[in-house]
């Protein structure tokens, strides 16, 4: 279980303090799939980075299973079971897909075992293990490899920052299947996905809406989706027109 207690994060911009995350109190219980949504610039990615340790809160505490991890480095948090999939997967020169999966697993996996993780994200593994994790791979391929690295860590809490960003529709269909499968297999861990996509919102146990750095709403999709009308105008094209129509009618 992850708890955020009164977490704030600010930066100095144009000579004045700008608060990107403001006093967030949040609990992510075990065995749940939580989706964080909200308008662009609302602080969602920053919240994910605060959990992974890439950013350090200016105020507040973060606890994992009751242990204060606020002062822990990215490495320590990873070793404590926090997995993080980047919105923009990082590219490397010379590091192969197999190397990255092995690093993630923390052991010298056999090629067959490494391939399991690639197959889980819908990649024909034999074609990919020896490829370099560089720009020769498409955005969708990189994204799926990114997710495979998180799967290979078997994290207590897996955080996915906009997994749908930059991938084609066909890959997206597979992605939903990956998360649905992940959702069924989690028992002692939990999943947090930052997403604008309605189909991802639909598989959530709980949806959290973050706007202007603060929690706006929290609940099941039945509770939260109707409320999204007030923020949907600033969320752009990400909701289907059906949803918007439904909301207007409601």
């Amino acid at each position, binding site marked *: 279980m992850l708890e955020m207690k009164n977490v704030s994060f600010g930066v100095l911009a144009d000579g004045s303090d700008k608060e990107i995350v403001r006093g967030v109190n949040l609990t992510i219980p075990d065995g749940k799939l939580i989706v964080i949504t909200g308008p662009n610039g609302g602080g969602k990615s920053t919240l994910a980075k605060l959990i992974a340790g890439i950013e350090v809160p200016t105020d507040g505490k973060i606890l994992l299973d009751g242990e204060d991890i606020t002062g822990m480095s990215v*490495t320590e948090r990873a070793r404590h079971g*926090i997995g993080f999939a*980047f919105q923009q997967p990082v590219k490397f020169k*010379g*590091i*192969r897909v197999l*190397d990255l999966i092995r690093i*993630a697993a923390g052991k010298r996996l056999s090629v067959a075992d490494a391939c399991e993780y690639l197959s889980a994200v819908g990649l024909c593994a034999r074609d990919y293990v020896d490829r370099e994790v560089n720009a020769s791979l498409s955005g969708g391929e990189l994204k799926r490899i990114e997710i495979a690295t998180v799967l290979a*860590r078997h994290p207590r809490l897996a955080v996915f920052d906009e997994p749908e960003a930059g991938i084609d529709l066909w890959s997206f269909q597979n992605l939903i299947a990956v998360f649905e499968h992940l959702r069924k297999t989690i028992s002692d861990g939990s999943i947090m996905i930052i997403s604008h996509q309605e189909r991802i919102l639909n598989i959530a146990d709980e949806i959290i809406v973050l706007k202007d750095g603060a929690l706006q709403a929290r609940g099941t999709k039945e509770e939260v989706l109707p409320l999204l009308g007030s923020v949907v105008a600033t969320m752009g094209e990400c909701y289907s027109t059906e949803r918007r129509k439904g909301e207007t009618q409601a």
Partner: protein
Amino acid sequence: MIKLDEMQKRLLEEVADLHTIPEGAYNIRSNGQSAARQSTANIEIVSKTDVSGLEVHIKPGTRNESVHIPVVMTQSGLKELVYNDFYVGEDADVVIVAGCGIDNCGNSDSEHDGIHRFFVGKNAKVKYVEKHYGSGNGKGKRILNPGTEVYQEEGSVVEMEMVQIKGVDDTTRTTTAKLAAGARLTVRERLMTHGEQRAISSYVVTLDGKDAVADVVSRSVARDTSYQKFEAKIVGNAPSRGHTECDSIIMDQGRILAVPALEANDLDAALVHEAAIGKIAGEQLIKLMTLGLTEQEAEEQIINGFLR
């Protein structure tokens, strides 16, 4: 045959991946002398009579054979200049593995300067692998100055893999190549310097014949206070294609000067150069740290991959 001690065996492993005596033709040079030599029916290795060094004659049409000519030095203060000439017959297809390992535990500088000349016949194919390695904690420097000259006849193909990853204090590498019509040259250089090391690597590749193609790619890492200079010049004297690339990572107070140069003397010479120097990208470190590596472990993985 001179028996090799444990240190010499270890150096052999580093520079030639050799655990035992290699198959095929070989000459193992140890502390200035030939420790072991074998010629084969198609590959003859003979000593030069005028200067120190070897002549390696590879018969036309020789296929799938290899030549190993590793050099190991464990005697502090030894300096040598060696000339090795390779005559590769037409249509031959061979692998040549050279390399030099110096272990210097003494206080005098040890130096091996090897001049390798390759005369590659028509349509012959050569893969040349050269690894340089230094070890030992003496104050004496480990110095390697390889000079490589390549003369490629029509349609020949040469692939060169030059690796110097560790322990060489001072090196000046000079490589020149002249390509006739239809010849192809590929160079992959991997270089890492640390401590106060200094490495200078220069290439001049001349494309003299129609449709000659050259691709010279160097990847290097300069750590601590080390210094590297990479110069690569491609000269197009005919309708030909040339590409040179220098991609470098700097760390600590390392310094690198990259000087790519192109000279087109023919309207249809298509020449390209690329050069990039920078530190390890922060996001690469963070990604690997989210996979549980420390910053230092992440750096090592990034560099190992980069220099693969």
